[in-house]
């Protein structure tokens, strides 16, 4: 079953561990600006949103890329940025509807999540569970449940207990 990266913004505490571990995993340094996952904080709404690639089936970033740098590399299960092809035109940055593509400030090439080739490091360090890597059906089931609760059809099990 296809696994997806689930983002549960309401659980995010804004600790930025995901940014740190991501940049370490990919660049060998702890620098949030080099992270493929980025945190957006809305202080006034007490909301923290981790922003990361949505792994679209028809990725706009790949559609606009003039050099074919955004895509799969032979032998690797997840899409990457083929840095040797990237010319740094920033088209993908503008095309991504999620805001999940950024430019590498030093290399001048695009950065996008590659799911650590199937074992995302950010998920492992996310203590509050705002990031989860789960099979698609499980994620959908959970979301469905949450929606039902949200619509007030049912009180959530937690609320029932207390």
């Amino acid at each position, binding site marked *: 079953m296809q696994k997806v990266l689930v983002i549960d913004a309401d659980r995010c505490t804004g600790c930025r561990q995901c940014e740190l571990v991501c940049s370490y995993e990919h660049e060998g340094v702890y620098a949030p600006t080099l992270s493929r996952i980025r945190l957006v904080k809305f202080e006034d709404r007490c909301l923290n949103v981790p922003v990361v690639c949505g792994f679209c089936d028809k990725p706009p970033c790949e559609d606009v*890329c*003039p*050099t*074919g740098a955004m895509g799969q590399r032979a032998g690797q299960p997840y899409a990457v940025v*083929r*840095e*040797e*092809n990237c010319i740094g035109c920033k088209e993908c940055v503008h095309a991504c509807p999620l805001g999940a593509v950024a430019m590498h400030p030093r*290399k001048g090439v695009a950065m996008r999540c590659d799911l650590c080739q199937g074992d995302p490091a950010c998920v492992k360090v996310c203590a509050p569970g705002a990031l989860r890597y789960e099979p698609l059906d499980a994620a959908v089931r959970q979301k469905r449940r949450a929606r039902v609760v949200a619509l007030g059809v049912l009180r959530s099990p937690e609320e029932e207990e207390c």
Partner: protein
Amino acid sequence: MKKEYVVIGNSVAGLSAVRAIRAIDREGSITVVSEERHLPYSRVLLTHYVAGKLRTDDLFLIQEAFYQKMRVRLLRGVRAVRVVPGERGVELDDGRWLRYDAVLVATGARPYFPAVFARGPEGVLGLRTLEDAVRIREAALSGSQIAIVGGGPVGIKLACALQEAGLSPTLLVSSPHILSQVADQEAAAIIERHLARAGVRVRCGVNVEELVAGRRGLQALMLSDGSVLACDMVVVCKGVRPQVELVAGRVRVRRGVVVDAGMRTSAPGVFAAGDVVEVRDLITGEERPSAIWPHAAAQGRVAGTNMAGGRVAFPGALQRNALEVLGLPVVAMGVTRVPADPAWECVITRSKVAYRKLVLKRGRLVGAVLVGDVEGAGIIQAAIRRGDAGWRQLVTPRAS
């Protein structure tokens, strides 16, 4: 610890490597070894110099200050004799020994002379260096008869330059048409007609059989069709050969130095870039000498970055040439000659002023020849590189 970098060859590949190294490593020491005494200049502009459109000063790519800014030690007029990977050192012709942590071989190529020209008299030369160009220019100004052998891009550009300098040069081509390695027959015919109108004589299908020398050097060429062409100078533009002597036997060399995508040779710490290397063609997959400027620049950057500890790769070679033939623009990219095979097809648009051909293999765009109208050539190149099927919109007529 401070790393020691040595760059052999002070031309486009070497320069672009120096920039890349410094972008990453501000501490390390960089030594550039240059056989030529000049600052780096653009070889491509040599024909513009011959034509009298540029002065020698206009050819230089950078100023002296570049080396101070980049904190580079430049050894001019010094040739590297050999690279010894076992001892991590480079031997120079003045006896000096340079130790290195990473060395770049960017020694470029030299003109190839077929056997008839090999030990020719005074008046036989290639066109590769500023000295060559100066000699040709002087000969042109003194009204010499100059013949050019080879119908490739360099031969054609030189013929145009000499025409612009006021001569009526003769271009001798052994293939049945010019640009036989680069473009197709129809494009070549258009260019030949254009050259003829401008006063450049192009003779295809002839070889030089013998050189006739007098006391003051070359006098005439005996041609394979039995005719004799009187001339005082012949410029041989029959392609180039990578200058691999300094590493031969110590790293893997075929026609050029064999490198991986990161421009590493078979010996650790030894990198190579530019005309000296052999790279994999993006389309045919075949390994061949790279020989064009944009590759040299890109490879130099890749090599420099990797020498300084970065990790980047060169995506592979796409053979391409852009020419301006006396006002007629020409672009040829990728595979341009189509084998008689149903898997291949061509989409051709012709107009009074333009000839545009796209070459497709099983529906995939693999090459293009554009003559007269090269607008949007880069868009076509990108489509060739991507290998997608979105080429059809490229042939729809433009409204502008």
